[in-house]
């Protein structure tokens, strides 16, 4: 327990600042070495980086590729242009624009701020629909959003000039402003990624059912990220508009979004470092290919003109990256900054005193299209002890756990805990009521580190970040994973993954902990080790554990009380000794032929035959 450490509290900030320093140094170098063209390229790089980071804030954390962010840029560019232009100039450029909408000659900073406010409002409105969708449906929805906003802006000729260029916008985005904005965007994106919402959303991205079972509402997290990224994209659009000086809605349509998404994908969508690297590489590629676009003669070789060559090159680059390095050229890791880890501060004492709580399952039934999986199952499970739930394959054990945790609602009966009725509760409500679980097929957050996996449920119940980290360190120490804290969760060995899932569930500070075959696939030493780590939890923390396993020795050795299911019905209940002697149980486990061999304890050989049969059945 003494080796429990947590990351330095300034870790994310230090890495963000290092990235800012790298970007600023690069931008400055280009501007100095290449003179005026270099300054233009550096300014464009900074503006593009802002836009890519805005998309990354949403797509990188949620896993939903957004084609819709140029819609925010489009709106942001117009809003900022309207309010920062002098009235006379605006009157000539857009004669039909209602007077109150612009011509205030506001400073650029206020223009940006207003763009951000409008962008956030637009994101809030659209996000109520878009943030509900994940994966491919979400991506298509963002595309629909772009088409809607573009169509409206292009059709509203009195506001935007339609297809005619809207000109006369003050060109205030110079290298310094663009670089300052890029630095600010980097800090925001990087801190958001490792912050509360970013971490919880990345957990949901990696495994939505597991995140929900820890009390995270993925739609809500997506909405937060969408609103922040909408505001950022609108600001990036305003910067872009003040760089161009004249534009039409079409400048913010498919071509722009294609380029920005390509930058994000080439560098790696999951990290801020990837956004920086991808923007630089794709821009360099575009720049180089633009020179060859009109055809080129190199000695005896002459290449014909191919208009759109940069598009082809960027597309091919994107395909190559997807094929050979799907996580992006800059991988899954952020640019590291070697701050020392800290000794874990003492975490808050585990919440106990739930001793009186009872989980009551009342005549629960569940049918799958004619198949009866559970029938009239009633049980009362008190906190403060380990209750075993056993039964042969197909007995309905996992169905029961899923019904309790909101993953598959029961078709009849009631589930209550104290005064709250959980019969039809969503997984996140069940989690918040104090029930945590592990999964039979391990569901970790593969893109997160070991300690982040465990910090997520602590954050989800509202603990401050430092306390959540300390809690994570304590639970990791409890399952013997303290020295693996900083490793990627996906790198753990099988038995360690099972223990990590238990640590993660413990960090949710549950009143009841449902462990669905926690020892499956473990060797005898690992199983014995797990048993010692679980044994004292009920007494120490007052929680109730429901242990489902095929390994009868493991269950019988740990539990004070055992419930036996067979074919969806509760067939026996009592102390391990009572249950083991129960003729119905022996019949269920060993078949009718063996029921004559009624003995209080099974021999080792019979035990392994029984469990072996069950695992293959």
């Amino acid at each position, binding site marked *: 327990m003494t080796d429990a450490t947590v990351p330095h509290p300034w870790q994310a900030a230090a890495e963000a600042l290092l990235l800012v320093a790298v970007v600023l140094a690069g931008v400055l170098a280009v501007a100095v070495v290449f003179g005026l063209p270099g300054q233009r390229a550096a300014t464009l790089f900074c503006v593009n980086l802002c836009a890519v980071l805005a998309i990354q804030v949403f797509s990188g954390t949620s896993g*939903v590729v957004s084609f819709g962010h140029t819609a925010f840029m489009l709106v942001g560019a117009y809003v900022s242009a309207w309010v920062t232009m002098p009235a006379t100039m605006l009157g000539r450029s857009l004669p039909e624009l209602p007077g109150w909408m612009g011509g205030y000659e506001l400073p650029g900073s206020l223009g940006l701020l207003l763009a951000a406010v409008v962008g956030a409002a637009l994101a809030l409105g659209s996000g109520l629909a878009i943030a509900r969708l994940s994966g491919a449906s979400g991506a298509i929805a963002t595309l629909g959003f772009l088409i809607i906003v573009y169509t409206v802006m292009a059709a509203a000729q009195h506001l935007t000039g339609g297809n005619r260029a809207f000109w006369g916008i003050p060109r205030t985005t110079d290298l310094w402003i663009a670089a300052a904005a890029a630095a600010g965007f980097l800090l925001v994106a990087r801190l958001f990624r490792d912050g509360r919402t970013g971490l919880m959303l990345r957990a949901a991205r990696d495994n939505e059912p597991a995140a929900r079972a820890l009390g995270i509402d993925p739609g809500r997290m997506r909405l937060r990220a969408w609103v922040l990224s909408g505001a950022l994209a609108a600001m990036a659009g305003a910067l872009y508009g003040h760089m161009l000086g004249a534009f039409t809605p079409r400048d913010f349509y498919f071509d722009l979004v294609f380029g920005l998404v390509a930058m994000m994908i080439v560098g790696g969508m999951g990290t801020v470092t990837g956004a920086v690297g991808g923007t630089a590489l794709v821009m360099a590629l575009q720049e180089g290919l633009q020179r060859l676009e009109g055809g080129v003669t190199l000695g005896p070789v002459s290449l014909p003109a191919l208009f759109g060559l940069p598009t082809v090159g960027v597309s091919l680059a994107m395909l190559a990256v997807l094929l050979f390095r799907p996580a992006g050229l800059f991988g899954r890791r952020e640019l590291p900054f070697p701050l020392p880890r800290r000794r874990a501060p003492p975490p808050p004492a585990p919440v106990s005193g739930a001793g009186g709580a009872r989980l009551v399952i009342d005549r629960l039934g569940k049918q799958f299209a004619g198949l009866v999986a559970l029938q009239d199952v009633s049980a009362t499970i008190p906190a403060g002890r380990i209750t075993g739930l056993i039964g042969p394959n197909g007995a309905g054990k996992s169905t029961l756990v899923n019904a309790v945790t909101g993953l598959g609602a029961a078709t009849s009966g009631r589930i209550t805990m104290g005064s709250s009725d959980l019969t039809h509760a969503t997984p996140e409500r069940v989690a918040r009521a104090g029930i945590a679980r592990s999964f039979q097929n391990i569901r970790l957050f593969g893109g997160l580190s070991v300690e982040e996996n465990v910090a997520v449920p602590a954050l989800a119940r509202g603990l401050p970040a430092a306390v959540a980290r300390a809690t994570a360190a304590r639970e990791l120490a409890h399952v013997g994973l303290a020295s693996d804290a900083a490793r990627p969760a996906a790198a753990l060995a099988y038995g360690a993954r099972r223990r990590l899932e238990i640590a993660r569930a413990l960090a949710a500070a549950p009143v009841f902990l449902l462990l669905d075959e926690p020892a499956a696939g473990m060797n005898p030493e690992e199983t014995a080790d797990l048993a010692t780590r679980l044994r004292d939890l009920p007494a120490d923390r007052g929680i109730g554990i429901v242990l489902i396993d095929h390994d009868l020795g493991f269950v019988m050795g740990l539990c004070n009380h055992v419930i036996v299911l067979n074919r969806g019905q509760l067939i026996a209940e009592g102390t391990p000794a009572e249950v083991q002697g129960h003729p119905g149980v022996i019949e269920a486990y060993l078949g009718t032929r063996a029921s004559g061999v009624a003995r209080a304890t099974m021999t080792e050989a019979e035990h392994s035959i029984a469990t072996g049969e069950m695992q293959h059945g």
Partner: protein
Amino acid sequence: MDLILQQMVNAVSLGGIYALLALGLAVVFSIVRLINFAHGEVMTVAGYGIWIALASAWPVAAAVALGLAVAILAAVSMERVAFRAMRGADVTTLLITSFAVSEIIKVLFQNGISARPVPVVLPAWMSGTLDLGPVRIGVIALISILTVALSLVLLSVFLRRTVMGLAMRAAAEDFPVVRLMGLRANHVIALAFAVSGILAGVAAVLWVAQRGSVDPLMGAAPVLKAFIATVLGGLGSLTGAVIGGFVVGAVEVCLQGFLPQSLLPYREAISLALIIAVLVWRPDGLWPAEQTSRS
């Protein structure tokens, strides 16, 4: 009354084209989890096929046949060249892959043929109208409706009555099992792309017949509608795709016909917003695919 009937004819003929495209997208998606952005380019290739054939004074039937042939070829070779290497990647990776393929093909059209529309001259009888009782119906609209109906019937027979059709339906439900049954994955997938190609080809013929020209972006707009139709119907559901296609067509025609003049430029936005509202109400679409447990 006549106006409403007229609009219904329009809605069915436009919705039918969207339905064909959406169905092609859904056939591919249900099997390989790819939302094919480049489906529009398959349609455009078919358009250019028809254009070349007619410009070379081929008979109409031969031009249509060439259009369908190049569409199948385009769809199958896209799978072979680009998508096969990515097989098994997640939905997002596949989506971006097809996005990139689509961009590349568009540039090739712009350079190889023309960035401008090329005219396609169809025989005069096709631009005529027929009077059916109170309704005056364009020959092309009639042909569209009949062709769409015939295509849907033929595809349905193919999927239900032939071994390969059954294999494709089984693959849509659970791909690994189909492989275990001894069917070659590459064959089933290539066939899915061929079916999507032929549907896009039919859609292209009807689209070109109605519009009279082909340009590099020809397929982009209708296929975008078809995307929306597949999501509206329920991603991966074939029936849903057809329903979604007709709904999108009907909404578009209704807005075109009944929206006041001042709001007409906004009709795309309005129809999309209506569809997104439906998705908020039913996030899995109108007619979702059967839930099979995929991890």
